[in-house]
């Protein structure tokens, strides 16, 4: 019967055979896998260059078996721009957290999108600074208690959570902007399609592609992994609606 056995699930080729260091219930592992699957789907492992951002995502090079350069905090889109302008024929991407992308790196992400750099950014929105121990992020929800918003985020003190996908979708340079979640299997499948679409579009020189992924940080949320997934559905998605905000169908040529 052995001859009839098909492999239906295996480690993507672009991921190294090593354990993730991420906390139990953290969604980074899932989204790393989604990215690796997209790279493998288009057979891009030898042609992909990753940019490691600062945060839990920095250890990208421990997991992806691809060339990687490490960027300073918030600067991954600028570093990716430099790489891409040298190797226009390579696939260049970064995975950035919400502190990295929506606070310290706001200028870089906006201008990289606006230039229409042909790169892919995977934006991990977990409403907190994970690596530094759960401080308030620009995406922290109103009322959410963090180590630096101990009374709950108050708009009078800290303003409002930023909706990055909606904001970037207003820029002409952006080719694909969407928000997905990985809190349940149905959403993971949609997220997988979104990540694959972003890589396809980059491969076809369509311009800047951006996938925001609502993710759990059970450790800093002080929740069980199951409750953390529930919170994404009940609290995050109502404020950060899932969907495609921009989807260019053809490359933008003058």
């Amino acid at each position, binding site marked *: 019967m052995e001859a009839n056995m098909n492999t239906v699930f295996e480690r993507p080729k672009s991921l190294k055979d090593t354990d993730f260091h991420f906390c139990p219930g953290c969604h980074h592992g899932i989204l790393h896998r989604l990215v690796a699957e997209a790279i493998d789907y288009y057979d891009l*492992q*030898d*042609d*992909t*260059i990753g*940019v*490691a951002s600062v945060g839990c995502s*920095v250890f990208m*090079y421990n997991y*992806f*078996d*691809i*060339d*990687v*350069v*490490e*960027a*300073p905090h918030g*600067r991954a889109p*600028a*570093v*990716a*721009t*430099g*790489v*891409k*302008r*040298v*190797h226009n024929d*390579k696939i260049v991407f970064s995975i950035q957290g919400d502190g990295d992308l929506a606070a310290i790196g706001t*200028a*870089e992400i*906006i*201008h990289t999108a606006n*230039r229409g750099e042909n790169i892919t950014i995977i934006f991990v929105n977990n409403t907190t600074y994970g690596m530094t121990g759960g401080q308030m992020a620009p995406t922290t929800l109103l009322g959410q208690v963090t180590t630096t918003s101990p009374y709950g985020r108050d708009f009078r003190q800290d303003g409002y959570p930023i909706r990055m996908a909606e904001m970037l979708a207003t820029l002409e340079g952006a080719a694909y902007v969407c928000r997905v979640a990985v809190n349940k299997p149905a959403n993971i499948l949609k997220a997988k399609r979104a990540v694959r679409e972003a890589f396809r579009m980059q491969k076809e020189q369509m311009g800047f592609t951006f996938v925001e992924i609502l993710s759990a940080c059970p450790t800093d949320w002080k929740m069980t992994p199951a409750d953390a997934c529930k919170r994404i559905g009940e609290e995050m998605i109502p404020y950060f609606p899932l969907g495609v905000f921009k989807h260019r169908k053809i490359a933008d040529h003058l």
Partner: protein
Amino acid sequence: MKKTLIKGNEAVAMGALDAGCRCYFGYPITPQNEIPEYLSRHLPEQGGTFIQAESEVASINMVLGASAAGARVMTSSSSPGISLKQEGISYLAGSELPAVIVNMSRSSPGLGGISASQADYWQAVKGGGHGDYRVIVLAPASVQELYTLTCQAFDFADRYRNPVMILGDAMLGQMKEPVLRKPPEKGALPAKPWALTGKKGRAANVVKSLYLGEGELEAHIWKLEEKYERIRRELVLYESMDLEDAELIVVAFGTAARISMSAVRAARGQGLRVGLIRPISLFPFPEEVLCRASRNTPAFLTVELNTGQMVEDVRLAVSNGARVHFYGRPCGAGSLPTPGEILQRIRTLCEPSHGPGQERPHGSEHEHRV
């Protein structure tokens, strides 16, 4: 070959092009705008990349990316912009990435002014950004040298996998002089097996500066230090003038050296035995040269366009017993010292009986016995 009359900033841009630089990322700031303006016109002709970035911070990080990808890459700015680039320069050094950074420095602190200044000496030579690292610093004193040293800077950067800074100033960047544009031999650029090109046919390359494992960072920093030691041995550049019989040696770099040279020539004309040492590489600093010179001539006058920065390195370099004097002025509009001011200082030091005279210099003076 004919010389052409060009601005210092244009000479830098031409030097970069002739050295094979095909990527430039920058942000406008006076007094260095001719560099990006020239390259925005001429890089596309060569199939290169020019990006006017959203900030100095973004531009130095584009430099980091392009360098990691294996390209010869440059950015330029002036003092306040160079402060913003320091984060990226620290990452470049930590990740052992070659790059050329030009500082056409202007008067500061803060917004300061737009006139020539050497107040960024410490920032350039002593680190600037966070961490235990060194940047190779070259200080041209003419438009010709701006061209030649920019060409060489790319070779040094690649040879040592280290950032190289060209430390000019508003005067050098803005003045016009005849330049012989003699491009370096067009050989193949050095191989960069560490660069990111996609891992086809080899193991994945990682360019990083984060080392969390037990003892990893210490080993990395010692490796960097060994490299800096090699740079100290191999890369010292300087010019000297009239040292043989000198009773006093003027030490100055860049624009201050140009002004000092006129003063030294005038002093010689008056029979005063004065020499000059002009450090061209500020890191590595010509310590040995100064130390040797101090055995014959134990009196120095350091001249700078600031209140006294390089003078500290001169004091550290000279042998025991040498006297190190300082003359300098913090620069703003109308504050550039004249050769006459420096000559007067030289006369006072060479002929103590001469006294400071009627015409008091504007600058700060101090003496220090080592």
